[in-house]
């Protein structure tokens, strides 16, 4: 990076507002995915005005810019794929306004997800999106990725909880989209920007909807001796319209590694568990709980336990939310997928995943949002072995293709980023992708902001990392054969 730009950034932000030593940059070349991207410098704006000036400098020096929150992303969205400046929002972390009467808060992008809930829980309110990383991840990152979480099942993803945004466009213009009200006349640009993975604008202010904490929460753990009994329970609950606030599944491999790490009280001899939460009025929760018990029994649950108090409940959730970390103790690396399938296809898809695991020789653990069909297979491998890295991506690609062919999608909440951009042609035609490129160019015409993300770098299917299967999933060739 040219020395003039570094000097100008330092003049703007002060010596504590910028990092450029190699050992510091190393800390920013990863996120939670298997991807890497080395930035040339890291800057820490403290205000919208800082962001505007940083963007002006980047434009003047024709240098790429990438926004970053806590770096917990799972698809390489906040990595500097083409180098340049990483704009880290950790110092823009003020909660600007809490309007309990109208269930709104205005926050800077660096506010940590759980900190907002902590700031409003005195009013009996909370911020609903609850990604597993919520103790660390920022609301700006949630906006970029349109993050979900276990309770997405009942309350929706981040897009459902954002009403307005302030943006700094890649030409340094400041624009407001949406507002505090429930809707705004005109094109729904706020809705379009949420989930654009930092490729449209740097977000400097977010107006979010708050929710009222439910009076009753019941957390149940249904324990199964066979995986398909657990998935059948989810299919049956969905079909009967029994709507829980969350419905998470952990398979045997995950249970054992989580239990070893967190001691949450998970049964280590089970094939799978469902962690189900019911929320709402006491009367509604009571009624749903008995329906739920009935379905679990019908689907051959060995036992349904109930968390007796907040401590037990928190422990179960701690186990669930630390599942990725627990796997980190078992294996040097893991590759987490995020495919979504229609919920009726759960059983078949898990069978396919097991088949992939056997064929490739990688252990695969499953911990996921079963209620909305959002899978998170964790493929265990050793990234120090380049051949393993190549094959793990191939195995992941095969699972994702199965999801798409089952009527699902590439990613339910982690984003496309740099990890899945070359898989986009599995779902989208050249015309679809060209239009998406056009939409990105409306916001980001020079492509300087977060370059080489989401859209495939090559044109057409020839560039696919994973070759499309010839027939349906049933006729999948066995590469190991």
């Amino acid at each position: 990076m040219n020395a003039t730009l570094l000097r100008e950034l330092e003049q703007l932000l002060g010596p504590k507002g910028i990092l450029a030593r190699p050992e510091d940059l190393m800390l920013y070349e990863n996120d939670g995915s298997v991807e890497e991207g080395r930035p040339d410098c890291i800057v820490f704006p403290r205000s919208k005005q800082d962001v505007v000036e940083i963007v002006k400098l980047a434009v003047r020096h024709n240098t790429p810019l990438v926004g970053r929150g806590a770096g917990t992303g799972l698809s390489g969205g906040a990595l500097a794929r083409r180098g340049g400046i990483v704009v880290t929002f950790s110092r823009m972390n003020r909660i600007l306004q809490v309007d309990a009467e109208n269930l709104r808060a205005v926050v800077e992008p660096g506010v940590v997800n759980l900190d907002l809930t902590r700031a409003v829980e005195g009013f009996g309110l909370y911020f609903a999106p609850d990604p597993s990383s919520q103790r660390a991840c920022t609301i700006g990152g949630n906006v970029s990725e349109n993050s979900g979480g276990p309770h997405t099942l009942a309350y929706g993803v981040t897009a459902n909880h954002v009403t307005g945004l302030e943006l700094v466009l890649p030409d340094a213009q400041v624009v407001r989209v949406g507002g505090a009200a429930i809707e705004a006349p005109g094109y729904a640009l706020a809705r379009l920007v949420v989930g654009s993975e930092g490729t449209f604008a740097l977000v400097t202010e977010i107006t979010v909807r708050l929710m009222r904490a439910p009076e009753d929460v019941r957390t149940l753990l249904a324990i199964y001796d066979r995986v398909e009994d657990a998935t059948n329970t989810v299919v049956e609950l969905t079909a009967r319209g029994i709507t829980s606030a969350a419905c998470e599944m952990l398979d045997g491999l995950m249970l054992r590694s989580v239990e070893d790490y967190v001691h949450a009280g998970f049964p280590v001899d089970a094939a799978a568990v469902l962690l189900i939460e019911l929320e709402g009025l006491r009367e509604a929760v009571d009624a749903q709980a008995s329906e739920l018990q009935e379905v679990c029994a019908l689907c051959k649950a060995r036992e349904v336990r109930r968390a007796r108090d907040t401590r037990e409940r928190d422990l179960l959730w701690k186990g669930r939310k630390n599942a990725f970390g627990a796997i980190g103790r078992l294996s040097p690396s893991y590759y987490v997928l995020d495919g979504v399938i229609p919920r009726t296809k759960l059983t078949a898809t898990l069978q396919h995943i097991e088949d992939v695991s056997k064929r490739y020789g990688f252990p695969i653990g499953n911990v996921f949002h079963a209620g909305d069909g959002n899978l998170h297979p964790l493929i265990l491998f050793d990234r120090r072995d380049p051949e393993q890295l190549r094959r793990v991506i191939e195995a992941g690609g095969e699972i994702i293709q199965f999801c798409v062919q089952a009527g699902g999608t590439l990613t339910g909440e982690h984003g496309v980023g740099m990890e899945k951009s070359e898989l986009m042609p599995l779902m989208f035609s050249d015309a679809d992708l060209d239009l998406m490129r056009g939409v990105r160019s409306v916001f980001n015409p020079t492509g300087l902001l977060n370059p080489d993300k989401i859209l495939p770098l090559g044109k057409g299917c020839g560039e696919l990392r994973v070759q499309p299967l010839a027939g349906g999933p049933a006729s999948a060739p066995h590469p190991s054969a």
Partner: protein
Amino acid sequence: MKPATTFSPARLADLVGAENVLTGAAELTAWEVDGLRPSAVVRPGTAAEITGILAMAAAERLAVIPMGGRSKLGVGMPPRNYDVALDLTRMNRLLAFDPADLTLGVEPGVRFAQLEQELAAQRQFLPLAPAFAERATMGGIIAASADSPLRHAYGSARDQLLGVEFVTGAGVAAKSGGRVVKNVTGYDIHQLLAGSLGTLAVITRLNFRTHPMPLRERMFVAAFVGSEGALECCRAIGKSQLQPRIVEVFNPATARVLQAPRVLRDRWSVAVAAAGHAAVIARHERELSRMARERGADDFAVFDGAEQDALFTALREFPRLALEAFPGAAIFRVPILPGAMPELLHKAQAVSERHHIETAILVRASGIVYIALLTPGGDGDARSAAHLLPACRDLMQAGPDAGVRPMIEWCPTSLKREMSIWPPPGSDQALAEKLKRLFDPQGILSPGRFLGGL
């Protein structure tokens, strides 16, 4: 009047068959938009036909307005040009319905009422409850951002939308989103199209999430002498643990428009629906009646069965009922935070008194206020329109602060010639204009109907 066009409807017939093109002047009155009559109505049966029509229209600069049940053609500014009515009612197939997955896919011309029946057979529903439910089509409901009482519990129409297929104004077929309930793959272009009033693309398929039908439902109506008690009651409900399906507040004028049985026509009403298990409904009844009493309600009624259906239908159909009774009415749609509602209602009252126009008010507690200025007389009634104009200008300024941006969802065409139904564009207008040029480079789709002249 509309400029004469040179295109030959025979070319449309080549694309969709002569039986699907109408050109006789007398036949076309039903497709008029703000008094403008198209040169032809074309009824495509497939997305491929739409691609052909739009490619031709783009090449010849023909203005095209996509439409379904034609219930919301009055929404928006008068089009700058209008050559072809793109009538999507032939595309009325249910393409996919996976009851066990609670998802479905439909063509844009499927009528809401028809879909509601198909879903009810599986004890499911789409939480939309749009006005003009008998005529409204799924494409139109999404394109016009139709609002509904059920938004309170389920979110808006766009929140039910999982993905769309569409053809842009450049004649390019594309898609966005997917068919599953959770998805962040690619840009959410379907969310951009929702509410764009047919100015960017023609939607050819829509995928929705469905919901299980509640076991049972009951409605409650508390009556108050003034708006203060009604809004206070509404506020108390919002602060409670109750989880009602709908919460609507309306004034006596609206009560007269709704004509629902047993609703007091000289009172402000708070109408609440509760659904689910018997114990849940009983709890709602108990707490609601207490809250209402404590805020000075002088009546609390329970609605069941046919009476409940009638009240729910009337609330859903409020704009239609108001326009049927007062064809010259102007109906404002004001998105607003609950805390600012009392001040808005106060200003609406002041406008009503200053201009001597009766005002029907319907508050959706989730954050929309409808204010209908009830002027008698039809669209052609110049005296009525002259009366309406200053009141509408006044009300357009009535936002308690700059953050409130009302629009006039329904009004006579004559009023639209005097003032914009849209609030002034915001700082995002340049982005909106660029998006319009990207999707519709020749400006052929519903030109001029949208905010900022798009």
